[in-house]
């Protein structure tokens, strides 16, 4: 087991087990709680993939469906055990991963053992599949009437050709009809292998004790089949149309979704750490201290619904801006002017220096909060960021590093979706 440091007083114990599972343990003994997350590299995008040049497919929504089913694996309701032991367990599926996580104030080991029991082997009944379909249909219907979600999805479809980018993570009522026990077996065989997963534990624990105890668990003693890496192909061809406008008299206010695509050649430049650079860049651009914010406020084009954030996946990225406002036409005109100024603009060094100080404070606060600590490390691991150097790398970021992103704010990379009354 290796012990490495993120900060002087934040150590991570890292172990790679013989079966391939990577385990990260982050002791924080002054806290009452412990958090644990088991992450699987399998998400909403994985309905078409290859293994050893052989093509496979799954019905859309399988990853999310499987996430539900794994709470009823082998006829056993996983959450029952956690509830009885005063722990909280939950899960979510994103585009590229599934996460099973729990928190507890009590003994962690029995809970970890139970969690790992659940992923050692798999058995699903048709009855449970049928029951879960009904529940998931209700879940999918929840977003059917959300105009905001529809507008965002329209934006993704406008920018990207590849279905794996814009398809609903949960699939559709139609696609999940095809899910059965056989489909779930294919998914678990191809993705639920220790080499395709990792475990992160943060809290009041003794790493040595945990690792020692886990070594004898069937999840680690079992002979796993050879794992063949999954490869995914994505079509990042640029689309011609950049604007989509829909009139809908049922709307109460207009919705604007903007995407500024990071061009493929920039996105795949391995010298650029997008996960570490785009967030500070975009935060600065839209902070209350910024020119953009000042102009929008002065023209009364900024309101509670405004949001701006980078979207960085492992195969594509873009900057997203959205707002709900009756003054959507004016907003679009003004924001375009402001954004297209960026390639030639000099960012304010005063704001940048202040921002860097705030990031130091935010890092201290994050590690001072057990849940935030856990979420931060999880996010960095998911994003493929080196957790041991990210603090130093972040400290070295300069305004010059942002020029490459400033340069992409041109009409060629600008996409607009507007839903108007």
């Amino acid at each position, binding site marked *: 087991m290796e012990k490495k440091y993120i900060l002087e007083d934040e150590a991570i114990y890292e172990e790679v087990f013989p079966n391939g599972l990577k385990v990260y343990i982050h002791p924080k003994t002054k806290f*009452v709680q412990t958090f644990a997350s088991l992450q699987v590299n399998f998400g909403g995008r994985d309905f078409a993939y290859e293994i050893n040049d052989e093509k496979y497919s799954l019905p859309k929504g399988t990853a999310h469906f499987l996430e539900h089913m794994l709470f009823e694996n082998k006829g056993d309701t996983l959450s029952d055990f956690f*509830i009885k032991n*005063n722990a909280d367990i939950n899960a979510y599926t994103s585009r590229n991963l599934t996460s099973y996580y729990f928190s507890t104030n009590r003994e962690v080991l029995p809970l970890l053992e139970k969690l790992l029991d659940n992923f050692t082997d798999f058995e699903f009944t048709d009855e449970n599949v049928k029951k879960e379909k009904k529940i998931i249909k209700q879940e999918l219907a929840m977003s059917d009437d*959300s105009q905001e979600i529809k507008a965002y999805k329209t934006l993704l479809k406008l920018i990207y050709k590849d279905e794996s980018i814009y398809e609903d993570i949960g699939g559709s009522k139609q696609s999940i009809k095809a899910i059965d026990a056989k489909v779930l077996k294919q998914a678990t065989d191809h993705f639920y292998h220790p080499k395709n997963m990792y475990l992160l534990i943060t809290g009041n624990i003794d790493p040595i004790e945990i690792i020692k105890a886990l070594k004898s668990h069937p999840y680690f003693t079992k002979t796993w089949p050879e794992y063949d890496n999954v490869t995914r192909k994505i079509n990042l061809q640029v689309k011609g149309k950049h604007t989509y406008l829909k009139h809908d008299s049922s709307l109460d206010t207009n919705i604007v979704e903007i995407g500024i695509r990071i061009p493929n050649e920039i996105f795949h430049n391995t010298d650029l750490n997008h996960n570490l650079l785009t967030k500070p860049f975009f935060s600065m651009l839209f902070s209350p*201290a910024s020119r953009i*914010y*000042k102009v929008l406020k002065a023209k009364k084009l900024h309101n509670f*619904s405004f949001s701006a954030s980078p979207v960085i996946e492992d195969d594509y990225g873009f900057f997203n801006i959205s707002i709900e406002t009756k003054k959507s036409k004016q907003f679009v005109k003004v924001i375009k002017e402001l954004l297209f100024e960026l390639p030639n603009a000099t960012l304010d060094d005063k*704001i940048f220096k202040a921002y860097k100080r705030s990031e130091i404070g935010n890092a*201290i606060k994050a590690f001072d909060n057990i849940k935030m600590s856990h979420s931060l490390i999880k996010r960095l691991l998911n994003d493929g960021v080196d957790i041991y150097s990210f603090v130093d790398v972040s400290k070295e970021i300069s305004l010059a590093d942002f020029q490459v992103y400033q340069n992409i704010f041109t009409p060629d990379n600008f996409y607009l979706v507007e839903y108007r009354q």
Partner: protein
Amino acid sequence: MNIVKRDIEGLNLFYLPSKKFKTIDVAFVFTNSLDIAEVNERNFLTEILTESTKKYNSPEKLSLICDKLYGLDKTCNYHIVGNTGITTFLIKTINDKYLNEDNIVSLSIDLLLEIIYNPKLFQGKIPKKSTIDMILQTEELLLSIRQNKNAFAYYNFMREYTRNNQERIGIFPITSHFANLNNQTLTESYEKMINQDMLQIFVAGDFDFSQMDKLIKEKMKNKPSLLELKSDLTPVFVGDKQINEVTDTTSNGQTRIFIGYYLDFEHNEKNALLMTIFDELFGGYEHSKLFQNIREKQQLSYYVYSRYLEDNHLFFVNLETSKDLRDQAVKEVGIQLKNCQNGDISDEIFEQAKQNLIKRLEKSQDSQTKMLLHNILNYLKYDQVFDFESKKTAILAIQKAEIVELINYIKTDTVYIYTNEG
């Protein structure tokens, strides 16, 4: 966490010492007797005061100084408990011990005082421009709420549910009072808060008491500080003899159901605890009556939950389902409540609900801010420190029979359905 009242003349000052965290939380809590006519103003003030000040006279300047103070977190909120309005200003700052600078805490408190006591004014009043901006933003917010069907359903439900209690429960924004709102009324509300509200100051973290005494005393010199106020924090809900059934329609989508109840019993500390436990076992977690029966057994809904709002003595159930399952879902909620009222609550669910509450209280010890807020409210309501062990003992002592007796006084008040026309 214990609480220490400081003996400083002219100030209600409390310290919550803790060596566990690297931050210091400072809260200024203003309380007043609720005046429903100024609920909009009080809510607006929480935004206007934290947006700019006399010295930092634009959001840009205020944001910049907060960033320079290592990302100082500042929040302000207004909420109603019983017949009392509470405005809480809260900052979270990094303790100087963990930085290479030694005056960040002092500067952060200065900024908090600047926000509270030095608002940006024009000719002695909150600027008209700020007022108009806030009104416009709120109107846009209402449009966004209308567009978000979940938010819209909840907003309409709460207005229906509290229809007989408008003088005591102000659901912001109170649009009927907008016409009277202007920078004059905002300024009056602000001056009332500063001069007539009771002020209590709380500081949580790892610091030297006498140094902090000196700091606060110096910074609060010449600032008004009302020390006492008879506040009534007991919520009262006026129910109705007839059930209020309201159905609103929209063009498409799922059916949202809210059922609001009249709690026909006195609100006191014991009954609030009984209701909190009942809320948990009825619709608070995966083994609750509602979750198990409505979602797991009958697959009527992806989510269903109950919520007890102790501060206003409100209790409701919410779920979302398809139109064809609506009547079955409403009926099932009624059946589950009736079963509980007849004593059909397993020991397992009952004990688990208690353990869930204890677990949540334990967890809050991992957050200095949560512990601070628990203490503020506990002090206001019961004039005592929030003591985890006493709370735990009280929860464990509760008997099932006490809950069953109490919940027989729960009556359906409002059934609100937001469904599609199709």
